[in-house]
């Protein structure tokens, strides 16, 4: 990997990190949508730096969709019942998770192999997804379809009259 790809990877990783921090600390849902878009942009850049161009395009589209869902105007909030102490315990747990994963990455003895694929890899991925792992691809496609149909059904059904007419 040359220096240009390395710079692209680290800049993209920093972009994803900044977007994630924005997600964590932004108060308005439009800014959280922007943060999720930044995460998607950073992840797509990291994929592209790792010679996964097709995955980068798919990730960019999917995370843009996620960001639009979060930033939509009829966004609704649901408060969780968890108290402050449990949120703090969860935050400490996330820090411990990072420490454990970083230690495993730092101490891990990884094999290094030469990469023979191209920069985009759509043809090889298509062969893999639709011939070698067709059942797994169909399963994920079915899961996405069911999730989106369920989301549409949940969003459309049993709305109060005020909501349907645009009054809140």
């Amino acid at each position, binding site marked *: 990997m040359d220096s240009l790809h390395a710079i692209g990877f*680290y800049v993209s990783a920093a972009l994803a990190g900044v977007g994630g921090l924005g997600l964590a600390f932004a108060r308005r849902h439009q800014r959280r949508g922007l943060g999720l878009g930044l995460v998607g942009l950073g*992840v797509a850049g990291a994929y592209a730096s790792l010679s996964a161009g097709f995955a980068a395009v798919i990730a960019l589209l999917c995370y843009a969709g996620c960001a639009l869902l*979060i930033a939509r105007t009829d966004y609704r909030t649901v408060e969780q019942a968890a108290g402050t102490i449990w949120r703090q315990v969860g*935050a400490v747990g996330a820090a411990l998770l990072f420490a454990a994963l970083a230690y495993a990455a730092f101490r891990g003895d990884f094999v290094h192999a030469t990469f*023979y*694929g191209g920069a985009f890899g759509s043809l*090889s991925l298509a062969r893999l997804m639709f011939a070698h792992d067709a059942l797994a691809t169909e399963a994920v496609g079915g899961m996405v379809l069911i*999730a989106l149909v369920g*989301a549409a059904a949940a969003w459309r059904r049993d709305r109060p009259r005020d909501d349907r007419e645009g009054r809140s």
Partner: protein
Amino acid sequence: MSVSLVSVMFVSAGLIALGAFISAWKRQLTAALTGLPVMFAGAGIAFAGVARFGASASGPPLIGQEMAVLLALAALAAVGLAVGLAGRESSR
């Protein structure tokens, strides 16, 4: 400057932990679920890194990239379903 599998795993660990922190820290359910795509992004970067640096020549080398694609799709599905369910829950 170079990128190795260790640095990729380090970035992946950071994103996974950041997603877990978002899910644990946010009070609102719809805000907390935005940690899920971040965790999936971290896992996808780890898979793509293994496909780039550690794939053996004997097996299919792009399984990691395939997993990254499927994780991005799963993240979109999870966010769509959760936002839809949250909208249904609060409309009652």
